[in-house]
């Protein structure tokens, strides 16, 4: 038995990915559940508008973090501030005092609502965009991102790695096909399946779960397209550093899990510790979730969604170009100048 244990440790030591998964994953979960996985909200971006905005803003405390004070504003401008995600709560001063809550941020809205007793009696509270605080209305649009991440990253990387395992990638490398032909030809079917996925989930969301669709179809398409390039690029990137399907799955899990936890899809970004929140801002799913909630629930303007859209666009270009460059390495003819110093026999 000792021999077996010793052998297992030796193999484990050399399998860096498994060690990374065994050590990295618990660490990540610790960070996520310690700093990120909180439903209690400690800070809520708040806008105060109307004639007494400055006085009310000065009196607000607790979790309400005043980010906009606009004495000239009214209920309509307050609604716009929430629609454009400039604030999660808007207080419209006047008589009666009105509080508008962003219903797309479930836990933020619930947390804010629970503190309404601090406000004067007679205050009107209205939840916008998702008045019933329906979980499915918030989750279904985000779920599109998660499913695309799965199809794009896991399934695509497995498909490419299978070519490498079977030796057919090497066969492609001795044909006149250009790397871009191979990569586009390889991912086009996944792209098509992913597009069908988007349409099906959206229709089911709208018909079965009564999720509203208030925004522009064009914006929906733009977010979907850019995000698809990101996830398919991630899939190809994962495949270029994986020698087997097992390795690809390990790596894909490491790409997938942080996005599920830190994108704001489940746990509100507002309740995460700042360092962890910034990790969330590095992840593509974060911006896709912002976009989808804006498009489905808020009917946000193009201007309001331009920031997540541009960031997603930049990520799509960077990740996809990186994927093509790495993939090229496998397929381009090798000459005497191409010998890497650290290469090992294949």
């Amino acid at each position, binding site marked *: 038995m000792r021999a077996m244990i010793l052998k297992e440790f030796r193999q484990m030591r050399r399998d860096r990915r498994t060690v990374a998964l065994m050590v990295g994953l618990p660490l990540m979960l610790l960070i996520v559940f310690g700093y990120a996985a909180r439903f209690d909200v400690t800070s809520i971006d708040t806008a105060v508008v109307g004639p007494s905005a400055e006085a009310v803003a000065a009196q607000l405390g607790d979790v309400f973090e005043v980010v906009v004070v606009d004495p000239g504003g009214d209920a309509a401008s307050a609604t716009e501030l929430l629609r454009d995600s400039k604030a999660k709560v808007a207080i419209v001063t006047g008589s009666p005092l009105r509080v508008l809550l962003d219903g797309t941020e479930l836990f933020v809205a619930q947390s804010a609502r629970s503190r309404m007793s601090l406000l004067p009696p007679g205050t009107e509270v209205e939840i916008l965009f998702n008045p019933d605080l329906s979980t499915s209305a918030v989750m279904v649009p985000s779920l599109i991102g998660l499913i695309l991440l799965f199809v794009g990253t896991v399934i695509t990387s497995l498909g490419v790695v299978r070519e490498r395992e079977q030796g057919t990638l090497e066969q492609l*490398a*001795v044909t*006149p096909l250009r790397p871009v032909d191979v990569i586009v030809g390889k991912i086009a079917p996944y792209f098509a399946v992913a597009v069908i996925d988007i349409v099906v989930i959206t229709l089911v969301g709208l018909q079965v779960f009564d999720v509203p669709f208030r925004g522009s179809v064009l914006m929906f398409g733009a977010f979907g397209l850019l995000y698809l390039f990101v996830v398919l690029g991630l899939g190809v990137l994962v495949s270029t550093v994986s020698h087997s399907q097992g390795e690809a799955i390990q790596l894909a899990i490491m790409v997938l899990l942080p996005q599920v936890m830190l994108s704001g899809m489940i746990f509100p970004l507002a309740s995460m510790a700042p360092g962890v929140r910034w990790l969330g801002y590095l992840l593509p799913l974060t911006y896709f979730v912002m976009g989808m909630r804006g498009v489905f629930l808020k009917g946000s303007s193009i201007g309001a969604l331009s920031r997540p859209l541009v960031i997603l666009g930049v990520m799509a270009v960077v990740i996809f170009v990186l994927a093509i460059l790495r993939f090229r390495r496998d397929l381009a003819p090798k000459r005497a100048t191409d010998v890497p110093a650290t*290469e*090992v026999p294949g």
Partner: protein
Amino acid sequence: MNPVSVIGATRRFGSFVAVDDVDLEVAAGEVVGLVGANGAGKTTLIRMILGLLAPSSGRITVFGQTQTREQRRRVGYVPQNLGLYRDLTAGENLEFRARIFGSATDKADFGDGLVRDLPLGTQRRAAFIAATQHDPELLILDEPTSGVSPLARTVLWDLIRRRAEGGAAVLVSTHYMDEAEQADRIVLMSRGRVVAQGSVDDIVAGSRVTEVVAAEWGRALQVLEADGRMVTLSGRTIRVLADTPERVNRVLLEAGVDARVTTAPATLDETIVVLES
């Protein structure tokens, strides 16, 4: 300029030298057999010629150029693992490859079974057709007959010869010596180096073994093996490689074994074993 020209090619992996200063030419219409044991460097050399692996030093040209994507149109390659999609039918594989090369799909009928369900000999024939249906001028085959029946090997060699007769340059790696004899020229590799090359006659010319005929042939064999000689048996005749009759005689005499010791021409197998040792 020959379709394949390799001059002083070396490939290192860290401190391990897989291919060491190899020269190799393959002319149009010629079948060159790349022979050697596993690990001799045959596949590494083939991968360098195909541009799948860069040489650490030396110069490799195919059709007079260093590797380019366009010249791949003129090359056909059958890797050891066949390079077929196992979850497609053979016909679908042929169609896929024909589309890539813009050639007509071969009409060979392999049925509707998936490649993974076909016998290995049929898979190898399908791989060969897939690699040749665009009429390549250079055909590179890495162990094309490994694991197949003698009949299937004969069929494949017939196909290979026909390609060469059609003007293609053919480079075939193999560790079957009887197959190597089908090549016009043999290049023998051992530990990354070319240790001999030429026709079968060139390589075996002058190469001899020591033959031992003894009444107590079993004991004679035991004595020679115990003395560390390389021996094979042909019937009851013992053939001793890489040794002189005088030394063999002395060993047997010292052991008190009465035997007749002579020399005989070595076979290709025996010559190669000696060259590789």
